[in-house]
């Protein structure tokens, strides 16, 4: 595709995870605009840089603040958040406005497949099919991207 790469913000307090994730997102064709380790940093960077996608862990340096970060990015910064967390069961039913979740521990292949899939969703506004293994879409985004009637893969 000749379009500009999508901008991604990584919100993760484990620096080794964040560093490796940055490599992965660049390999899939995203452009990493930065790394935030706390909720304040995340919101400041998101509202300043307007990334297309923010990858948000629930547990940040200042506690389990990732859910609020996702909501703020969605409501106030005009971005789309995607959770990447080991706490999938603790997310609110509406995913705090985020488009979905990748459960930890994820595999390199799982993240790449999920991000490639989301690239299409974000660019086209329509899902190319059911989400790949390891990615769960929020009910609101599944509907927005034309998947309302289809059960997603578990």
């Amino acid at each position, binding site marked *: 595709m000749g379009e500009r790469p999508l901008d991604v913000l990584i919100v993760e307090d484990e620096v080794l995870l964040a560093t490796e994730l940055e490599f992965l997102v660049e390999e899939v064709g995203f452009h990493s605009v930065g790394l935030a380790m706390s909720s304040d940093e995340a919101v400041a960077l998101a509202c300043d840089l307007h990334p297309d996608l923010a990858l948000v862990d629930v547990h940040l340096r200042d506690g389990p603040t990732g859910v609020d970060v996702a909501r703020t990015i969605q409501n106030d910064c005009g971005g789309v958040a995607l959770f990447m967390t080991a*706490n999938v069961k603790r997310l609110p039913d509406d995913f705090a406005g985020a488009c979905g979740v990748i459960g930890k*521990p994820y595999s390199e*292949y799982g993240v790449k*497949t999920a991000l490639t899939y989301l690239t299409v969703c974000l660019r086209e506004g329509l899902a190319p099919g059911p989400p790949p293994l390891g990615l769960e879409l929020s009910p609101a985004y599944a509907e927005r991207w034309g998947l309302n009637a289809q059960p997603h893969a578990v």
Partner: protein
Amino acid sequence: MPGRSGASHEMTDILRSERAAEELAAEHGVGDPFAAAIRAARMAMIVTDAHQPDNPIIFANDAFLALTGYHRDEVIGRNCRFLQGPGTDPAAIETLRRAVADGEDVTIDILNYRKDGTTFWNALNLSPVRGESGRIDYFFGSQLNVSDKKRVEFELGDARDRLEAAVEARTADLTQALQQKTALLHEVDHRVKNNLQLISSLLLLQNRRVTDPAVKNSLRGMLERVSAIATVHRRLFQSDDVERFDVSAFVRDLVGDMVGTARRDDIKVQLDLERVDIAASKAAPLALVISELFSNALRHAFPPEAMAGRNGEIFVGIARGEDEFRIEITDNGVGLESSASSGGFGLTIVQLLCQQLKARSETMPADPGTRVVVHLPINGGHH
């Protein structure tokens, strides 16, 4: 009073006079076995006159006087509410008042007071006595001291309340303990998953730095093993039962991921997976065995230079036998002799873990290719 019998007519006339009541009742009893029986009964009894203002007592037997401690003079001509005191339940008094007003029978346990101020529980029965016209002429009351029964009732009630409180407190304790345990389990689960992610990230990061193909290969192998364990943990806490582990669901996840990672579109995978649950404690070793065997087929059975445009196929089957699970991994590749299988470490892992699982693995030629079958005893028995 029209319509009354002579006897009761006569009785009414006389009994209306408070002071005369006792004497006349005694006189009356001379030839009347019923009155004599009532006077001498062991149960306390009274009669009140419904026609006089405030329904006064006009007759009380000896048992009543013995029960209440009053002299007959102090009783006759008074409404029987003098038996009530500060400890008497107002609701019970209201029930009595209403029954009298409505002309109905009433049976009630009520706390009454003796002349000396001591209390007793009175099982009171009060019934209207109607004349032939249907009007109420008298009320007949009987009193039974049920203090002993009441005390037992109260004690039982207290014991029950104490027991209920104890059960409630214990339940609260247990509920709290369960909540703590669940929270702890979530916390541990969360940490295990994060640490597995951290280990994967470390291996991936180092793999980006090194250039030596042999080192890269070792790192990739370790990453695969860590991924297999990570997949186990993802699956383990997805279900509500953390004690059991669904092997077929795991194999589906693992195979999809490994084939995707290998980027071998020319290798097709065929699955025939019966649902098989094993103990969670066996999940990680079995997952490593399957991962190792599948990886072996994926990496070594189909060297790209030997494919010549044709497709390779790997079959993974899980079946439940009588006393063992049978896990089969078959490829139609180049076969053991011609494969460049690294052999060494991967096969050592399989052998060691099969020992640990008390499982037996067989490797045989599949013409073409290789078939490996792992026999895992269902109840951990020996072969």
